[in-house]
């Protein structure tokens, strides 16, 4: 999970930089828009990139799904306080502030209620999360870190930045593997997450204790493993030469042009606003 898996797909073959631009653009656009009508096509696009094109298995995406779903709960809290007509520039404000469900009047925070506009806002936030999560997933799943390092090294990027890239790509996969091993080992000792939230927190503390110990030494381990393999001691060479193909260049040009058009629409025509 959260790490590169070798496959022969269009996205795997793509140069890391155009790929980063493509995924960055769709993520940024999704962040700028608030109208789900605009964000849904973007989400459909990244799902197509992730599933039929990059062939990312659901098991790999599982943490992303969990994280995205948790965001609904977190953001739902904010959504019930959105009730001002002034938020809306495109949709009729009277319709958007229509109350579907009155929840409670909370001192200091105000009246908590479910409105159509609040639901639109919540939907857009959740969709944004998923666009971002799918984009990150596609990048991590299809990009061999050594290709990216090779590209950065060819651009004379400093050793320190290269190390950050190196450590970044290694850190989370290692952390996830640690977590999975610890959870399995705890399951074998009969330590399970309780339905009682207080007990569940104490169990989680037992997971975090060995995890924290390992994380604290992880930076030292990565430094040791990089140093003893001569990292930063000379000019970085490469196993596979990565070059910008015509397709890469065409995709980059189209994506940038599309981004410019959509940003113009956002600024001048309120595209994507509620």
């Amino acid at each position, binding site marked *: 999970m959260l790490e590169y898996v070798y496959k022969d797909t269009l996205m795997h073959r793509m140069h890391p930089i155009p790929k980063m631009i493509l995924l960055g653009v769709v993520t940024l656009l999704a962040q700028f828009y608030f109208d789900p009508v605009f964000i849904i096509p973007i989400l459909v696009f990244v799902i197509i990139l992730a599933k039929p094109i990059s062939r990312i298995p659901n098991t790999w995406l599982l943490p992303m799904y969990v994280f995205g779903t948790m965001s609904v709960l977190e953001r739902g809290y904010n959504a019930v306080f959105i009730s001002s007509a002034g938020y809306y520039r495109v949709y009729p404000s009277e319709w958007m502030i229509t109350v579907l469900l009155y929840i409670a009047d909370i001192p200091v925070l105000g009246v908590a209620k479910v409105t159509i506009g609040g639901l639109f806002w919540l939907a857009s936030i959740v969709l944004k999360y998923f666009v971002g999560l799918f984009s990150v997933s596609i990048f991590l799943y299809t990009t061999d870190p050594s290709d990216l390092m090779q590209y950065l090294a060819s651009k004379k990027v400093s050793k320190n930045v290269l190390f950050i890239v190196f450590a970044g790509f290694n850190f989370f996969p290692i952390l996830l593997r640690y977590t999975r*091993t610890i959870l*399995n080992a705890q399951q074998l*000792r009969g330590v399970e997450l309780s339905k009682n939230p207080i007990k569940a927190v104490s169990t989680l503390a037992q997971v975090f204790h060995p995890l924290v110990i390992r994380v604290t030494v992880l930076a030292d381990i990565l430094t040791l493993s990089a140093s003893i393999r001569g990292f930063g001691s000379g000019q970085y060479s490469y196993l596979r030469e990565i070059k910008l193909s015509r397709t890469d260049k065409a995709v980059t040009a189209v994506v940038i042009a599309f981004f410019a058009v959509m940003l113009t629409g956002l600024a001048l025509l309120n595209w994507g606003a509620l």
Partner: protein
Amino acid sequence: MNVDRIVYRRHAGDLEAVKDVHFTVRKGEYLLITGPVGSGKSSLLYSLNGAIPQLIPNSKLEGEVDVFGRNIADVDVAEISKSIGLVLEDPDTQITQMTVEDDLAFGPANMGLPPEKLRERVEYVAKSVRLEGLQKRNPRSLSGGQKQAVAIGGVLSFMPQIIALDEPISMLDPIGKTQILSVLKQLNKQYGMTVIVTDSGMEVESFADYADRVMVMSKGRMLKTGNPHDVLTDTEVIKASGLRLPQVTELCIRLGTSGPAAAITLDEAEKVVERKMNGRKLQNSHAELFEKKAESEPIVVVKNLCHTYPGLEKGIEALRGVTFTIRKGEFIALIGQNGSGKSTLALHLVGILKPTNRDAVVEVAGLNAAKCRSKELIRRINYVYQNPDDQIFCEKVKEEISLGLKAQGVTPDEVEKRTTQALNIFGLEPLKDEYIVHLDRGRRTYTAISSIMALEPDILIIDEPTTGLDERDSLAVMRELQRLAREGKTVIAITHNMNLAAAYADRIIVLHEGTVLLDGPPKEVFAQSDVLAKSYIAPPQITQLAQRLKPLGFPPDVLSVDEMVELVGRT
């Protein structure tokens, strides 16, 4: 390389892990540093390329290490690594890339090797360390032994002038060990590569054939250094350091050939025994017909078990229709080449992994392991991880051992009673309030095993119980497992140590490419060396010797030095 009276402390004020060690290594030498766990071998190795003290925080090194005339204290580790390649004991620590080929290429790529040469180098190394076909796999998803091969390959690939390896073959299958050592010898002879390797004594037979010089360490000090014959046949030094003699050396000494004249390799031992036989042949000796034990009730039934991991284009088939039955009270050794599916199989038995085919049967003590709740299953069967640190969660020994009991809702009195019993199994009672992080690998392994034994499962699976342990600790673990089996518990030990499998197991199951290749008593299994070779397994050294001596009438299923002495004595 000149090592001048170095003293190393892990932290200022600590006791010395290495005390006043001095030696010189000449270009093209093949040096084995051996000694029990905690004797200072790894610390010594890490100080040879400056990792100690440069990369180990708060460590303190006195004395001097000069390599090619430069004091390594003045050179950056990344820089000196071009000349001295260091292979760490734990391969997980060393793997840095997302595919095997990228990991093999990482070192030489850092040194700017031209792309064509880099590709050639990666191809050569992948072949040498038996990683062909795995180049696109994620190294972290490979088996322990395969990861060890990646770690070695990742350093071999930049062809350092000196290669220092910390316990490099402990997780490899027997033929894998020989292959790696042969490659090192070849590079040593062909290119003058200097090889410095450590071993805790468990692999002494493997190294005896290859090393030019052996250094024995104990409690941070160098006890003896010299040519392998002088050192490995010196019973006093070997005994004082807590090591053991190679099987063939022990045989020679018991046959009356002691001192440097004793054999340390198979070739030499063959000649010694031939001389002893003086042209005579053994009469009426043949492979023993195995007497079947009275069969107890089946406790584990596995039928047509398949498991495919996600990854690559079509997934990775780890198990392909495994079928066997294990009976109550059996001591099983599960062996097979690296990546043959041993750990995957074990994780199915404890319910962590589920079969990927619908018609698989995994019945453990009458429970369906694929569907049963984990809490129920772990009362019947449990698993000790290969790396004790994977299953240690508490700060102190006693807390760790009682954790599982408390999680299972055992009464406080019972927790106390069973924890005390478990602490006594390996003599951990005096260490019960110690911080686990301060214990050596042997004590951490004891803690991990004891914490599972406290749960009193009917079936205990133990993955590579002797990895990282020295002779004394390994024997203690194996004897305890044997005691459990005698008391009616079922023990399944996954191991690459054929000597221990031959000495302790009642039955051996050999896995090969996800299927059962052989299944029978040790004598029956180890007699079939041709079939075993398919799974990169070689019988114990003494069995190999008996098989070489077949023309003299020796049976192919001799498993111990005692048996061999008795056979020679018959003439």
